[in-house]
């Protein structure tokens, strides 16, 4: 079956001019320019079904934005194939972009000097949105995102959160089938973020719009997406559910124990013991892999040998797992 979004073995590199330091270097470069090839995306493949919501994450410079830009028809891949909704984005750009919406958190598509509503009117003309659809979408989104108070204000006078909401609506007025969000919550406060996330969830549930997110905020992903694609150094390193990532990489557990007195704990095999310097040294942390150590065995061992007041097991935050993946600690 043909998937809605199909990316096959896509690569993209950029040429970066490389300069030696100082004036001699600059002169040398003027005569014989040197270039360095930077591989932004390397042999990435994935497919996404209609109505899916996918989080696309990776450290800075991993190639996320480049991939989004190739998917939205702005950049040409050097190699590989992309097909979205039956179009080849970079070859059929004009026909294709009418069916997608893109929100760049860092680049507003609104007219800086004009009131928000004027930018919307301009988009209505550009996308040739029928009056009825435009009214319906505008009223619905304005209500969902709580925009009535600033719709007539010039964009330059909006707060970042308001501008972001306006930008999201701008990308959705023409009822796109796919929406790409490139860091949609960057720099937005907690309340604003929550508003944006619940809006996105609602839209996906009601309209079956496919969505691809890039973000650095793991909460964005946890609260909206059920699938996660992680790329690093231009290559895909994980593709699956959020729970899957915990199972695969999140095997570390920690056990915080409050003892009745300040014991010196005998070393236990495969378990790291950390002093927490709380409660006069009565609190200690035991860190281990749940693949190597049975938690009930460890607890039994502790309960039998020491007096214990409180015990608490925790699994790692998704954020710290991702951090470890980025740092190359797990794989």
């Amino acid at each position, binding site marked *: 079956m043909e998937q809605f979004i199909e990316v096959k073995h896509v690569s993209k590199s950029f040429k970066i001019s490389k300069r030696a330091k100082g004036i001699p270097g600059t002169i040398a470069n003027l005569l014989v320019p040197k270039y360095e090839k930077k591989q932004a995306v390397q042999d990435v493949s994935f497919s996404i079904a209609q109505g899916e919501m996918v989080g696309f994450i990776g450290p800075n410079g991993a190639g996320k934005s480049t991939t989004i830009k190739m998917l939205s028809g*702005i950049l*040409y891949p050097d190699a590989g194939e992309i097909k979205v909704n039956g179009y080849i984005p970079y070859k059929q750009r004009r026909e294709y*972009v009418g069916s997608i919406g893109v929100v760049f958190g860092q680049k*507003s598509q609104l007219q800086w000097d004009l009131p928000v509503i004027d930018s919307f009117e301009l988009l209505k003309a550009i996308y040739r949105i029928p009056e009825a659809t435009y009214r319906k979408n505008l009223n619905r989104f304005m209500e969902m995102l709580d925009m009535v108070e600033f719709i007539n204000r010039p964009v330059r006078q909006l707060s970042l959160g308001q501008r972001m909401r306006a930008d999201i609506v701008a990308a959705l007025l023409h009822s796109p089938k796919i929406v790409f969000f490139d860091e949609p919550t960057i720099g937005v406060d907690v309340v604003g973020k929550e508003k944006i996330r619940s809006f996105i969830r609602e839209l996906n549930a009601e309209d079956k719009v496919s969505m691809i997110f890039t973000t650095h905020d793991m909460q964005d992903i946890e609260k909206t997406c059920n699938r996660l694609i992680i790329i690093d150094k231009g290559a895909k390193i994980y593709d699956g559910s959020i729970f899957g990532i915990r199972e695969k990489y999140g095997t570390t557990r920690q056990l915080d124990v409050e003892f009745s007195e300040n014991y010196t704990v005998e070393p236990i095999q495969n378990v790291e013991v950390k002093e927490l310097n709380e409660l006069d040294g009565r609190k200690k942390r035991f860190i281990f892999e749940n693949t190597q150590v049975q938690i009930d065995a460890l607890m039994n061992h502790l309960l039998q040998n020491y007096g214990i007041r409180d015990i608490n097991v925790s699994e790692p935050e998704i954020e710290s797992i991702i951090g470890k993946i980025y740092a190359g600690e797990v794989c």
Partner: protein
Amino acid sequence: MLTPYLAFAKKSFLNRSAYRFNHFMGILNTILRIFIFWGIYKALYGDRSEVDGITMTMVTTNFILSICLEAVFCVNDFYLPDRINSGSIANELLLPISFPGRMLADNLGNAVFKLIYHFVPALIVSVLIMGIQAPAGIPMLLLFILSALLGYGVLWTISFAVQMCSFWLINVWSIVTIKNVFVNVLSGSMIPLWFMPDWMSGVLELLPFSSIYFTPVQIYLGQLSYGEIAVKCAIQVVWIGVIYLIGTLLWEKGKRKLVVQGG
């Protein structure tokens, strides 16, 4: 079909009207330039009534019309370079419209504004103070307008093609400046081609630059027969076609090389 482009033209028209001080200074600049040329040519002519069969009135008419047209023909040479530099080209490419079409729409909105609020007042002031030769009849006036429109086409396509170089060069200021020198000197607006040596004016008449301002002015003055007008306008059309084609080729090649800066 045209709705989006009209919307862009309208927007650029309205944007223009936002900067009033700048606008008045622009009119003043045009009038000052006309006065400077007037002063120079008055000194050059002294008390001769004509030089090489060209009267002072004809010369005055040439620079008044050329400089006023220049005000209308003001093309933003940095439309694409600015967008590539800031990375906002990404947003433009997300719109379901032709980018060259959008560039043209933006310039046309600007040109209409300049025609009404710049060309007309500057022309009236100049005509009242210096006087201008009347057009050689209504048909010639209409052909002048047609040829001036084609002249705008030539100028726009040249700028369009030059701007496409910004896909390869981050800074196109230098080639834009070179282009503007060619346009200013070789178009006959500063030094009418009448005063150039024959071999040179023969070459210049075939180049695109002279067809921007000088061809319309010659038609206005009634210096060309209908046959010659047809040839000159054909030259304009051919240049528009050729340069547009070059620009489009560069655009097609360039967008594959596009690097979106920032983010």
